[in-house]
């Protein structure tokens, strides 16, 4: 039986212990929160096949290692475009929210883009892009390039080796959102070493639906001196670039009190 991140019990998703945040074992990880909201939005009602063009997640507070319920509202509904809001409830409070723009799904697969200038996942070393998701974590990462002191990007391939929810296929959009949420870890260069930088939000932009198991992120961090940094990720699959992602990172000194979310 395939390992699963969550199992469904009625309307609730019950987390497996691997969902634990690396920052705090009582909390769910950001990738699990982003994945649940993306999944809920993908399952929203629609007259025809729709796909997510933009998804914005606000992490409002800690999501405890408890059963969760996702509530979805169609703010704008129509055949050409939908705006979908999703709230993630834990016990009786909303712990995270997302809004998404959905557009009609393409009828044909997209033409392949130019080949990626990176080695294949099989040729890249199996390494955690953050020290928190190590060997054996369901989100397997292969590092293509580490960020350098001159601001060069961090590049990694990732695939999710579990089912997100037991008994159902895991969509590539859910996987792309999870991968986008760890991209900051792959992009932290030498100048960021003394800083914690949890992300307060996550925005993922899809020009088309991703394809295949392995997805690639190329990530740089822009930072001014205001204590906030922005990741700039380009997302790709074997067929080329399919989207972008951004995270707003809240910086605090690594020796200060660690909090999972600012």
């Amino acid at each position: 039986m395939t390992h699963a991140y969550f199992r469904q019990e009625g309307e609730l998703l019950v987390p497996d212990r691997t969902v634990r945040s690396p920052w705090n074992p009582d909390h769910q990880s950001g990738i699990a929160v982003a994945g649940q909201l993306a999944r809920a939005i993908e399952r929203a009602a629609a007259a025809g096949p729709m796909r997510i063009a933009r998804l914005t997640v606000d992490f409002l507070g800690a999501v405890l290692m408890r059963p969760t319920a996702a509530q979805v509202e169609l703010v704008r509904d129509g055949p050409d475009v939908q705006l979908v809001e999703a709230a993630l409830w834990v016990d009786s409070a909303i712990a995270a929210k997302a809004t998404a723009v959905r557009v009609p799904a393409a009828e044909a697969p997209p033409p392949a883009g130019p080949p990626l200038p990176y080695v294949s996942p099989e040729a890249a070393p199996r390494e955690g892009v953050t020290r928190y998701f190590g060997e054996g974590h369901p989100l397997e990462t292969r590092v293509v390039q580490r960020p350098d002191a001159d601001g060069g990007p961090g590049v990694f391939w990732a695939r999710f080796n579990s089912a997100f929810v037991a008994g159902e296929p895991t969509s590539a959009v859910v996987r792309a959102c999870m991968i986008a949420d760890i991209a900051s870890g792959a992009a932290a260069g030498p100048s960021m070493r003394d800083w914690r930088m949890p992300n307060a939000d996550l925005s993922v932009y899809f020009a088309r639906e991703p394809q295949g198991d392995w997805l690639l992120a190329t990530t740089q961090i822009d930072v001014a001196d205001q204590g906030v940094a922005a990741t700039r990720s380009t997302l790709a699959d074997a067929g080329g670039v399919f989207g972008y992602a951004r995270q707003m990172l809240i910086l605090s000194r690594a020796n200060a009190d660690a909090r999972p979310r600012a």
Partner: protein
Amino acid sequence: MTAVDPFFTPTPDGFLPTAVARDPGQPDRQAGAALAGLLARSLQAAPAAATMNIARLTIDLLHPAPFAPTQVLWRVLREGRRTTVLEASLTAGGLEAARASALFVRRAEEGAPATVFAPPFPAVEDAPQTPIEPGPAGFETRLVTGGLEGGVERPRAWIQPTTEVVAGEGRDPLAAAMMAASFTLRLGEMGAASGAQPLDIAVHFVRPPRETWILVDADTLAPGGAALAHSQLSDRSGLFAHAQQTLATSRFTRADAA
């Protein structure tokens, strides 16, 4: 300075759009830039955001806003030690035309790291005054020529609102940045037939803008499916934000074929 009127005048229960706020292509509607400016101004004025820096502002354009009295309501989703999250809803003529969400972050402790961003483009004063056609009212635009990347000329322009969003409040850099960001798609597809409507405006700030002249450096990613327009936003001190706009496929194809 071509426009003297502000985009909106305040009323006891909201705002009245002026002629400057009209969509030049659809005179019975308000321009997206005007809505972006009003939402930015309203969120920034919320007490929960006081003393904090904007980090992200995402605007979803739900329906064309009729040229009618306009209200903005906001509420606090989270008010924390380091971050505040606000939501806003813009109603025009009784119709909810836009929603927004904003992330504000408290300024850092001393010594936070910084990447140096040199201002990479010709100064405003050195760029020729070039209107974007059809010209939006209330803006001065200066096209920055050049910049061949991959054989494609990337459109870049300095954009500045020439008037206040709301009468009596002065011109505000954040509103100017959101208004300039609303031209990302227009600039990104310059040269192609235009007229397509974006679905959203999302801006991610590494610092707040310092002035109202905003350089928009745009490009478009369209590998099938939808088009994503992206721009880097800079002021005279350098890069301060990245902006995104989404466009549905069917509209993109239609506009392209026109």
